[in-house]
């Protein structure tokens, strides 16, 4: 049904999106919780930095990643010395996806934490639960709707990531050629339109499935909470 090239792009996209989602999640939960709970002087600056990848042209982001994490980049040279290579590597595609999708992941998580009745946490504390235990047993489970939405948004956005990825990690078959990059490549070939169309259809199915899964997971959780 699918050609090896298409399957490779599909596999790579899923791998990159999954890694980007899983590695972003702990950081997004920590950031969402912190922004929901605390006020501090430079909060506006943190918020601006957080939103920056959403408004920056993806190519600019890819170029910045190259300057920072390229093999001779400011940070990349040290990572390289440790044997960690990001540029022109699928791991770099994960990093690009993480940065682009991170704001989309943090916002629903933050909102979920903001909506939790703080008195529930206070009750748990007065029953003898330490702050860490309160977080794990009360705050985190009650923030699950936001965590699910954030994860699905991050996964879907990572599947569609193109500009920053192609600038930072290029277009290498079986290494960095994800679905959007493969579609772009097929469209450059004289006979590639059919393959591009199939991948476009596949992208639509994947994105739609993610959103439907999102809907059902949330429904299930709302029922559990009695909402």
């Amino acid at each position, binding site marked *: 049904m699918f050609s090896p090239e298409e399957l490779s792009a599909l596999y790579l996209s899923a791998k990159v999106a999954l890694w980007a989602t899983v590695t972003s999640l702990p950081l997004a939960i920590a950031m969402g919780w912190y922004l929901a709970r605390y006020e501090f002087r430079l909060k506006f600056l943190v918020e601006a930095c957080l939103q920056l990848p959403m408004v920056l042209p993806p190519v600019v982001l890819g170029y910045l990643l190259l300057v920072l994490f390229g093999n001779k980049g400011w940070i990349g040279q040290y990572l390289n010395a440790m044997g960690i290579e990001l540029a022109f590597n699928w791991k770099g595609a994960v990093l690009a996806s993480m940065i682009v999708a991170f704001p989309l992941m943090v916002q629903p998580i933050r909102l979920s934490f903001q909506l939790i*009745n703080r*008195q*529930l946490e*206070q*009750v*748990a*504390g*007065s*029953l*003898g*639960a*330490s*702050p860490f*235990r*309160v977080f794990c*047993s*009360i705050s985190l*489970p*009650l923030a699950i709707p936001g965590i699910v939405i954030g994860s699905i948004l991050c996964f879907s956005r990572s599947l569609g990531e193109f500009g920053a990825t192609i600038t930072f990690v290029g277009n290498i078959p079986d290494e960095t050629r994800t679905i959007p990059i493969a579609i772009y490549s097929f469209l450059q070939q004289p006979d590639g339109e059919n393959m591009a169309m199939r991948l476009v259809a596949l992208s639509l199915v994947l994105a739609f499935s993610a959103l439907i899964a999102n809907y059902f997971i949330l429904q299930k959780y709302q029922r*559990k*909470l*009695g909402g």
Partner: protein
Amino acid sequence: MLKCDFQYQQADFLLKIKLEVQQTLLGIVGASGSGKSTFLKNIVGLLQPQQGSIQFNQRILVDTEQKIYVPMHQRKIALVFQNALLFPHMNVQQNLRYAEKLVANLEGKFQFEEVLELLELRPLIQRKAHQLSGGEAQRVAIGRALLSSPNLLLLDEPLTGLDSKLKQQILPFLKRMKDELDLPMIYVTHHLQELEYLEADIVQLNQGQLQNK
């Protein structure tokens, strides 16, 4: 038992408390805004007095001079709020067990079964918080507080928001707790009748100052 001598200021409201509690059940009555809940929040550790000290059973919980401040989860003082505030992602049994699991094995004062019996919670244990009436939820909240094995139980207008029929259902449970459990309690309300029914020793809180009733 409980010895308070502290001040807590918020905006232009000053709560000034000097109190020694020896009774099993102390009732504090006062109008809305008199500082009743603020007083309890200082005792439980949700608020921090700017000046003074709080001691319970010779243990210093707060001493602003010595810069001692025992965090809420280490005080072994449970607070039942006006709203039951059951954890919505847990059923009644899980809510009760949550508190029980936080207590070290040997420190448990009340048995799970004993609390179910006392508050007649057995028919409710599989229900979710949203499937309970206000009175049932408040009984679960009280049971949960008991299972955390507190040394002191604070009740912050636990019957507010319940109609008089539900109040009449819960008050006997509170009376049983007072009579049967060896547990000091402070009960805050603006309904004097509740305290009279419970045969509590009563003090009045008026604009942040305690007065004998």
